[in-house]
């Protein structure tokens, strides 16, 4: 998410303001200390014009039967 934010030319504070959360939250998400709620993840993806799975990395794969 940090890459997307920096590409948009926004500071953490600016992104926080646009999303209606604290800068601490943006910092925690970017440093992998906090997983945002689904509504916030959707808003973040919408703001960057991406899908949620493009914005957040999840290495989980389903077990093969």
């Amino acid at each position, binding site marked *: 998410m940090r890459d997307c934010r920096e590409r948009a030319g926004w500071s953490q*504070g600016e992104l*926080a303001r646009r999303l*209606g959360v*604290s*800068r*601490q*939250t943006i*910092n925690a998400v970017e440093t992998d200390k*906090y997983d*945002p709620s689904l509504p916030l993840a959707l808003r973040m993806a919408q703001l960057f014009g991406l899908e949620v799975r493009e914005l957040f990395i999840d290495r989980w794969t389903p077990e093969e039967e």
Partner: protein
Amino acid sequence: MMDAMTQDRLSKWKKSATRLVAGGLVGMAASAGALVLAGSDLVGAMGPSRVALATIGLIYGLMALMVGFGLAAPRAGAKLLNVADAEELREERSGMLLSVVTMGALGLVLVLLAVARTPGFAAGLVSAEVAMGALALSVVGGAVASWAWRDRFDELNRQLGLEGCFWAFCLSWVLLTLWAAADFLGLGASLTAIDVVTTLAAMMLLGSFIAVGRRGMMVR
């Protein structure tokens, strides 16, 4: 062999634990200093339960002072507090100011309770009515403020609050159950009503640190 992620996590845990212990020691030392200033006669008359309560109250007060200092002088505060930079202190000023007021009020009320005059403590500095009035005011004020300011806290604040309360409850439950049972069975120190207040306040503090520390947010 440990992978890099495990090593990083261990390193963060060590740093968090070090900060927690260091913070606790500084808080205890500052509280002890304040109690010494209060005079040995008063402290001697207070007894362990009141001293413990006053110590926890002073730690809350000290934390309020530190955050308040950070807000008043963001550049110096950024070095003292766990924030990214001075700008964060400026941006989060309103939310952090609420923390200062809440922690300061709680600390003051706990200290007032600790030094309140009661039948067994004539040397108390304030009347029991003043202490109870301050407590009632802070409870009502806290409830009203929580409702009025509910939209000022975002989802991370709420999540950390919930996790902090969870840890505080679990720790308080275990501690108070063991202590009360030992007292009931005549196997340990007696548990007084004010010890319950002290334990809850102390565990709320510890629970909050655990919630923040588990997320690796005690270190940057």
